[in-house]
């Protein structure tokens, strides 16, 4: 059976097949995390590529007491946070937003209606960054409070309070129609 940990042990020895399986297993969710944090598809692919590159080269630093997914998400969040820092001075994802608006108008987005999707995106912008990261990881992969705490190096209580705050901001932003 190819458990995550078995695969990681093989990646340490530069086993490309094992690495490809890991990418296949987590790539989609990692892309979703990066896309939601960074806005554009191209930046998200870059970030995921860089995160996996670190995983491949730094596999020896992996410790078995971590779930592989937690470890991967930690690397990815680290990459994304650093990327967001770099572009802070530049203008933020307005181009990506325009594209999303166009997609919404074309009726893409099947599981939730496209308008709600755009609203969620806008609402999320009001959530402070550290909390937004937690929300993203929580919803893309259902990570536990403990895992989130580990990934961001904070206490479980801080995770809970940040998530509660984010939800309340989202509820307000999605209901009130304020700031449209």
């Amino acid at each position, binding site marked *: 059976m190819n458990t995550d940990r078995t695969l990681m042990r093989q990646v340490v020895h530069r086993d*490309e097949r094992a*690495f*490809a399986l890991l*990418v*296949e297993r987590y*790539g*989609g*969710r990692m*892309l*979703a995390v990066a*896309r*939601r944090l960074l806005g554009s598809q191209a930046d*998200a*692919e870059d970030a*995921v*590529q*860089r995160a*996996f*590159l*670190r995983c*491949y*080269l*730094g596999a020896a*630093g992996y*410790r078995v007491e*971590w779930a592989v997914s937690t*470890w991967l998400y*930690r690397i990815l*969040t*680290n*990459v994304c*946070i*650093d990327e*967001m*820092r*770099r572009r*802070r001075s530049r203008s933020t994802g307005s181009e990506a937003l325009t594209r999303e608006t166009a997609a919404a108008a074309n009726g893409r*987005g099947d*599981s*939730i209606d496209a308008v*709600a*999707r755009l609203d*969620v995106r806008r609402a999320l912008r009001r959530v*402070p960054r*550290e909390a937004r990261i937690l*929300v993203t990881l929580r*919803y*893309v992969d259902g990570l536990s409070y403990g895992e989130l705490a580990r990934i*961001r*190096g*904070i206490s479980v209580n*801080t995770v809970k309070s940040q998530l509660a705050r984010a*939800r309340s901001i*989202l*509820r*307000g932003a*999605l*209901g*009130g*129609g304020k700031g449209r």
Partner: protein
Amino acid sequence: MTARPRPDDLRLEEWLSGYFRPEPIPAGLARRIVRAATTMEETMKTIARTFSIQATRNGVALVARRRPAPSTGGAGGRAGGIGPAPEGRAGRAGASADRLAAQARRELREYLNGERSFFSVPVDLSALPEFQRRVLEETMRIPFGEARSYTWIARRIGRPRAVRAVGTALGRNPVPFIVPCHRVLRSDGSLGGYAFGLGMKRRLLELERATPLLEGCRSTHIVCRVGCGAAQRMRSDHRVVFGSVAEARTAGYRPCRVCRPAAA
């Protein structure tokens, strides 16, 4: 747009899980990553193996490609590349120069491993003509992971028309990597030139993009610049990247007193 009623918790959960669906994985991603990783690793190893460092007692004065060694064991202990390679020299000045060269080797090795975002070893440019020295000093002010144009440098040193001369001065940079001439590009964003080939320039820029600037330790709750000596013993799974010192503070971290990340 009409205002909707506040969504109840269930509806909010539904929207959020819909919004955060996984994305399709681009074809060939794993193969591309392996290829990029291998190239990156080879480049960095080549630099570590083929460059040697010389210092005066005031700082690093030369980082240069070594001439191919005629045979191993010959050239007076220089076989270690940027690895530890004591160079016999007499006197106190020689000792401090050796110490600085050793520090530069260590820092360069960490930099190439993506474990360092700044150099603390001093640089000695005193033997250079004034114009070149000013160009290089200005180049050292370009932040890690960023890039500026030849024109920008020319303007900053008060010689806005000397763009070409700036390029020449950078091309003869005696202390590459540590004086980051690879961070200087053309105004249109294209790479311009590089003494060791554009491939290496591109990979150095990519290395810096992949190296974070600020890192906190989960157990001490201190945030450092990546490469800080005080953080060297930090366990790899204790490292948490932060976007700014302010954000680190909101997570309960305080800035390191050794590397002073707030001033970075």
